[in-house]
């Protein structure tokens, strides 16, 4: 069995973070994770920054991370 990752990069989608973290958004505001796994936006289009809200699925594939 391969090692259990703390961070998972989802192709075309968010970055998954396992466990407790403090994430600083693009405006310098810090956000504490609140769930066992959190999804950090990588496409830049989320309405709930810094967290993913699924918006990457409705932007053109070439603009996805």
């Amino acid at each position, binding site marked *: *069995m391969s090692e259990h990752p703390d961070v*998972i990069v*989802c*192709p*075309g*989608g*968010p970055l*998954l973070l396992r466990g407790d973290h403090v994430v600083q958004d693009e405006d310098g505001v810090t956000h504490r994770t609140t*769930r*066992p*796994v*959190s*999804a950090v936006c990588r496409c830049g289009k989320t*309405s*709930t920054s810094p*967290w*993913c*809200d*699924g*918006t990457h*699925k*409705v932007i053109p594939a070439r603009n996805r991370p």
Partner: protein
Amino acid sequence: MLTPKPRGTLSQTLFELMRSRPDELGTIRGRRPEHPDDAQISLWALYELSFRGFEDVEESLEWHPDLVALRGELEADLEAELRERFRTAVGEVPAWSPDAFFDFCADHDGPSLASFVHRDASTDQVLDLLRLRSVYHLKEADWVAWQVPRLDDTTKAALMELQYDEYGTGNPHRLHAGMFARGLEASGLSATYGAYVDEVPAEILEQNNAMSLFGLHRRLRGAALGHLAAFEVTSSLPSRRIAQGLRRLGLPEAMAAYYDEHVEADAVHEQLAVRTICGALVAAEPTLVTDIFLGAFSCLDLEDRVAHRLLGEWAA
């Protein structure tokens, strides 16, 4: 909860025997449902014996041989129907990859209740929808929990990582089903478990029964996890539309908060369900890929049927 209202001759006899004359349950053998409503409410009630049960039915009847036999017949009908719809609509099952699964869900075209709530629904229509949804949301995530002990270690751990969040990470105030209950109360609706079962159309019962079917049978674990994944994949963006629709209508923040939570939670859960849960299941048991897509298709198709029914009624 008390036994629901019967909807035909089978459910009439079944509920009467379950409540008052369990020693005569043998007479139910060979009885067939009168029509789909009768079949779905009968099966729904038989499944409910394994969830919270009914105040007017003995708990021991959950495993009564004649009820188990009847449940088996109704389940065989439902499974055959779901498999036939899948065969007809899907044709060739895709090879497994997370992208193939996301594409399968994205390419599925159906009417959207979320879009209707977002822009057009009236307050009464939204309250109707919340009543119908309550049959599922008050036991959200419970059905797939039945599959936990039947999975290999990696898939089991991955499923529990998602389920732990569904169950509020041990905090009952954050349990998703509990958040929905508080939203119902704030909206002036009953949050009593099963309160609106008598009002729901057969399509809602069938949608709930399919989840119980997939959850309760070990051999259907692929369909269960595929259904879960499709449910999560189609939740985040629609939840945002619903939250916006609720705010457009000035409905209580507690109800909108439930949908806000699902925007963020299900953006995580969809990745987990597809990549770490279904991905692990496929790695452990590659022959289950077809059933994963059967579960996914059934999730999407049953929601289409609910949406057709409700949008049709509301347009009339």
